[in-house]
């Protein structure tokens, strides 16, 4: 196993983690602050990808595509919040799960009505279509762009949440929303803001994933599951938890897939390794989550109260 390959795989894991972070950041706030399980987050990701692919297909401008994805999902998120989710904040998690599950079915089908069943095309912008030489291995520059965007977003969120007044209110809302509301803060507005930003981040993730993944109805569902795994592993309600959770899940998943079958081959018979290696690799993140939950039910980086 060469060092450059290991390094490239680490980078791959990092990049998947960053993409997952974009998804988890919004969801963790919605869950933490509004205590609302929002399964439509995956659908917003899908819509972001569709908006981006459509605009990119007609204008060939990645900037316009980005604008469409972010603004489009922001708007869609606000509408969903107003029409459906805001009515469910006071109710049990179960009904939020039920209603948002219904919305997933609905939005997937809407995508199918508008864009058809088959996947649609979106390419990497020309400036990022090349590869960068990484100690002898070619590495796509677009993946570096994903990492850069994710880190910038992470940094921006950190600054907003820890250094501004809005951020303070959001943090306060996460630990005790009733108290914040009693102090005269317009919690409704904060909710809408957080939900909108979360939706826009999902849209951004969709935009970045558009050229890598096939843009088609239902593309958000597997990502949604991964995002939930990240949240539960990292701890719900904190950006920090989402960030580290996403990186851990991304790296464990990638490294597991890359090296576990080879490692097993050293220990056991080749045919057994070939059968068991990929099987274990594909459940590795679930195993990780189960272990984390069994040891620390609150996740690795829970919100600190009080």
């Amino acid at each position, binding site marked *: 196993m060469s060092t450059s390959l290991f390094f490239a795989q680490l980078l791959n894991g990092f990049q998947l983690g960053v993409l997952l972070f974009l998804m988890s950041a919004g969801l963790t706030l919605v869950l933490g602050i509004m205590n609302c399980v929002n399964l439509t987050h995956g659908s917003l990701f899908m819509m972001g990808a569709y908006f981006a692919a459509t605009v990119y297909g007609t204008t060939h401008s990645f900037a316009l595509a980005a604008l469409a994805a972010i603004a489009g999902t922001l708007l869609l998120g606000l509408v969903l919040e107003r029409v459906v989710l805001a009515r469910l904040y006071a109710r049990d998690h179960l009904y939020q799960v039920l209603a948002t599950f219904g919305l997933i079915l609905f939005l997937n089908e809407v995508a199918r009505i508008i864009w058809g*069943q*088959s996947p*649609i095309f979106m390419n990497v912008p020309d400036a990022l279509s090349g*590869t960068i030489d990484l100690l002898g291995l070619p590495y796509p520059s677009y993946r570096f762009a994903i990492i850069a965007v994710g880190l910038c977003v992470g940094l921006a969120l950190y600054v907003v949440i820890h250094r501004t007044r809005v951020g303070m209110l959001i943090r306060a809302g996460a630990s005790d929303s009733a108290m914040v509301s009693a102090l005269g803060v317009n919690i409704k507005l904060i909710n809408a803001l957080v939900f909108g930003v979360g939706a826009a981040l999902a849209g951004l993730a969709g935009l970045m994933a558009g050229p890598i993944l*096939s843009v088609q109805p239902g593309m958000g569902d*597997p990502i949604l599951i991964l995002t939930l795994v990240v949240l539960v592993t990292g701890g719900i309600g904190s950006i920090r938890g989402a960030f580290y959770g996403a990186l851990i899940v991304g790296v464990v998943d990638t490294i597991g897939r890359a090296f576990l079958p080879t490692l097993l081959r050293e220990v056991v018979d080749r045919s057994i390794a070939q059968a068991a290696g990929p099987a274990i690799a594909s459940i590795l993140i679930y195993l990780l989550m189960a272990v984390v939950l069994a040891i620390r039910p609150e996740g690795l980086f829970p919100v600190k109260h009080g």
Partner: protein
Amino acid sequence: MVATGFKAIAAAVVMGCLPLVAQAQAPLKIGFISTLSGQAGSLGQDIYDGFMLAIEQNGGKLGNVPVQVLKEDDQFKPDVGTQAAQKLIEKENVSIITGVAASNVMMAIYRPITEKQVFLIGSNGGPSPLAGAQCSPYLFIASWQVDGLAEVMGKYAVDKGYKKLVLIAPNYQAGKDAMSGFKRFYTGPVADELYTGLTQPDFSAEIAQIAAAKPDAVYAFFPGTLGVNFVRQYQQAGLLKTVPLLTSGVVYGTTLPALKETALGVIGGQFWAPDTNNPVSLQFVDAFEKKYNRIPSNFAAQGYDSALLLDSAIGKVKGNVADKPAFMAALKQGSAKSVRGTLKFNNNHVPINDWYVFEVARDAKGRVSLKTIGTPLKNHQDAYHTQCTMS
């Protein structure tokens, strides 16, 4: 003359509502079960579109008998598929069921259908047990046996003289079957065999391994969405220019619009391609493009071929499909009209035909399509037909 013609058409149209009008002219009911919703839905839709095109060209008839097609969505779930089959047989009394895009649904429904002595015309890849020991006189695979996809690429790799290959497929039965099918013909050294998750969206880890292994070529089996993701990421990693990509189930009519020029140069293999040169195929591609405004996929061709097979067999028994031995014999004779030239069945009711290799390239109109570059397997018989006890 005009009056009787009109009566026949009217009967075909209103028969569903008024079963008492004229029993003799009741349209022949054909059940169509396929995956029409969800992620795998585009395959089922393509098969359906191809099937209906043939019926439309025949003026609503197959074998000179008016037909009524009853469509059922199996949602990619075997239990929903069995339920749909039961509904078609017990409620609608169909004697022919066709379609079936998903192999898990196929495995679930073939027994309940064939046990009731209803004819099942599979329009998509036939799973190996059904071509071998579990073959049935009531089951006809009007498309191909799944392994052919991999075998033709294995033969192609041998013909090209590749010496060192990396094989990659999802970690499930079809993926493993593809690997063994490939190695049935390619017996050279394999640098690595990689298995990926079945719902895995990102292949960066595997692609990095391929880049590090520096093989002569890569063989990949990735059906549907997985293939789109894999080809894009392979191309973005710059490997498509240096390491040829041989594929099964990756590039075809429904994935090419999502891949476009990123897939240029990818090699694939099938029993048919849009440029397959015979009168039936050329006419089919033309009519399909006119009607649906897209290049037909091989799935659409399979649907069309299933209809042509039924057209020929129903015609031979003059519409009397209730005479099961006669209809069975008629189906077994295949069809003189087929997108592959002629459709000829092996003892296990799987076609014997040529397999082509094609490259993703621009067609005469500048669209990204498939260009046939060779025929590695001629009159190919699947590997399982000897296990089938039918003669």
